[in-house]
């Protein structure tokens, strides 16, 4: 127990240690996150009227970001499957970054759902009368929190073992790894079912939503990991093999192609059949009754996804700079498509045929930025702490091991970036 507390204390100390770039990055993130807190306090006082949401478009940027981030959390599964199922050992050293990402991203998901609630003070009602298994939202509560716990356990155990300098006991984490793989797929499926199950919203009421979720998640997640690994290997002494990045590139490649294929299937079904169900898709891609706020967004997103896919297919993306560009395009493209492009059109037109557009307000945007900043802050700390620990540079034996009276704790002795 004492050793575990020492571990937490060392991690805490370590998260404050770094060069000026690290401090600047953390200061900026903290400032943006506090901006979000400020806007959220406003929302608490005045109600959700501070957002651009209305009775017509009753979910907006919060739920859009939530949906996208649930996808990003899949990154972990896409790293874990090659390593533990197919024994692709290139990725072994980087799996932990995927799981840490899952932790940070699920925290963001939970925050996005919380800020969307009209009465966060009644949060306890969820425990007192949990409408399980009827409401899909309760499934999502279980799926997301379970995934958070699984990943916290796996990462926490591996890092703590490294800190103690002992070999992890397989039976303590391998079963959880396999459960987490199935769980990662379930968080997407359940989140998709949240929308798919609504018969009154034809734009969502389609079986292709869940597969599209998975495809886009398996593209955006590993793309995000590629960028993270590039940063890790540039700024720390942690070694990341090129082969690991190229394996991830192949995953993103395949996922992007499947994603585009499913998109084409959906667009064809809607537009060729040309039934009354087309209205929402028409609004998204071409505008409806002269309202077209989302049209430029979705075409930019489709353009980004096409360019990203093309880049990934070319041999040029073996060069890491091109790969970075492709990943960035895929991340942003999918963010627009899976976020705004999936949530907002389902509300336009309303079930009674009214066309009301949605425009996020400043407060709403600040809250979203704040949550993103907080998520990045959490992820930065997790990566910052785990790199030296996993490299064996910070262990319990080194820090507290040999008795030498009069010494003071000196985390600075840990070689930092």
């Amino acid at each position: 127990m004492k050793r575990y507390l020492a571990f937490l204390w060392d991690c805490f100390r370590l998260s404050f240690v770094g060069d000026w770039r690290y401090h600047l990055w953390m200061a900026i993130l903290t400032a943006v996150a506090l901006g979000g807190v400020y806007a959220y306090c406003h929302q608490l006082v005045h109600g959700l009227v501070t957002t651009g949401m209305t009775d017509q478009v009753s979910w907006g940027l919060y739920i859009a970001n939530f949906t996208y981030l649930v996808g990003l959390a899949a990154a972990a599964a896409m790293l874990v499957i090659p390593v533990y199922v197919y024994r692709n050992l290139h990725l072994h050293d980087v799996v932990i970054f995927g799981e840490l990402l899952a932790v940070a991203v699920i925290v963001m998901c939970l925050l996005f759902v919380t800020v969307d609630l009209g009465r966060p003070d009644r949060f306890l009602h969820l425990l007192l009368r949990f409408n399980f298994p009827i409401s899909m939202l309760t499934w999502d509560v279980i799926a997301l929190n379970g995934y958070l716990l699984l990943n916290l356990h796996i990462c926490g155990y591996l890092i703590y073992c490294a800190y103690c300098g002992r070999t992890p006991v397989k039976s303590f984490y391998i079963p959880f790894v396999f459960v987490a793989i199935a769980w990662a797929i379930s968080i997407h499926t359940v989140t998709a079912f949240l929308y798919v199950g609504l018969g009154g919203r034809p734009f969502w009421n389609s079986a292709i939503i869940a597969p599209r979720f998975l495809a886009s998640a398996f593209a955006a997640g590993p793309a995000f990991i590629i960028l993270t690994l590039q940063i890790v290997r540039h700024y720390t002494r942690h070694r990341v093999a090129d082969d690991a990045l190229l394996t991830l590139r192949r995953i993103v490649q395949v996922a992007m192609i499947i994603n585009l294929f499913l998109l084409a299937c959906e667009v064809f079904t809607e537009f060729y059949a040309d039934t009354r169900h087309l209205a929402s898709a028409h609004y998204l891609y071409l505008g409806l009754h002269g309202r077209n706020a989302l049209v430029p967004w979705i075409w930019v997103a489709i353009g980004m996804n096409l360019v990203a896919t093309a880049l990934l297919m070319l041999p040029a993306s073996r060069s890491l700079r091109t790969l970075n560009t492709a990943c960035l395009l895929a991340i942003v493209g999918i963010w627009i498509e899976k976020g705004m492009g999936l949530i907002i059109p389902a509300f336009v037109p309303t079930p009674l045929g009214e066309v009301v557009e949605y425009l996020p307000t400043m407060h709403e945007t600040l809250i979203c930025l704040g949550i993103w900043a907080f998520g990045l802050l959490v992820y930065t700390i997790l990566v910052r702490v785990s790199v030296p620990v996993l490299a064996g540079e910070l262990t319990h034996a080194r820090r507290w091991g040999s008795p030498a009276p009069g010494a003071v704790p000196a985390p600075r002795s840990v070689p930092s970036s």
Partner: protein
Amino acid sequence: MADASRQPVAPGTPPNPPDMSRRGFLAKGGVAVAGLSALAAAFSPLRHLAPEDLPSLEDFLQKHYKEMTPADKDRALARIRGQVRRRHRVEVRVTDPPPLDGVEFVYGLNISRCIGCRRCVHACVQENNLSRSPEIQYIRVLEMEKGSIDVESSDHHYASAQVPRPDKWYMPVQCHQCANPPCVKVCPVEATWQEPDGLVVIDYDWCIGCRYCEAACPYWARRFNFAEPQLPEGSINPNVSYLSNRPRPKGVMEKCTFCLHRTRVGRLPACLEVCPTGSRKFGNVLDPNSEVHYILKHKRVYVLKEDVGTLPRFFYYFDERGSRYAEPPGPARPQEAS
């Protein structure tokens, strides 16, 4: 696990003396002060929180409606009376009329007769203490194109003063009190449910405001309190009930309940009473002598969005004779309406 007697040490490096210099102290203090003031600034909007906005311990401990004992219910009704008195300076009578045995309410709307005057909309606002700002209305009247029953070609914002227009017909939509309600299914906390008499109700003190039910409703019948509802002084209907028209707090859902505080004690819904054309019919479908029973049995009935399978208790019907459309179309009659 670790030996407590051991002292922490960083082997191989000389221990860093703590930075006790004046400069280091000032720098650290500066950072701490800046951080704390930024934190305080971030939380500063909370100072506008009115004390009555904060949930009291009573609010916090109140049980779900279905779990309340009669004594709990009395306490809740008394608390609501006190809250309305404090907030609106009005004495209200808060009741909780139970569903009646052998009763299932249904509502029929004659689209051959409705002239789209929106009197029902305004009567509902008044009866149910709906927020005037931001404006909330349970009933939405659609002005439909003749020759089409497609809601997408309807006009929601036509001018009431010019109705009825000869080339249009009118379709008021409100909660359909579905027998297979999608809104009830999705609620994560069971804050909304179907009563034995068929009414779908909301416990405003239990709703967490996730708006999933609003997304699920195919009739766009649910409304959310995006801000604290504003009721003008002196306009409050003092006859209120727990599950229907008591003033709502911000951040929760609300909807039409067929005026259950009236209908469960033998009165008719406010929207029906005010209708100048007699287009609205309400009653107990289980009673074979009721008007609604007769209409369902003998008239041509249309169910809006029957394909979504919600089995509504609200339906539309047509007259074979006596329709306003039987008259030869002429210029719009000068009918003054609100």
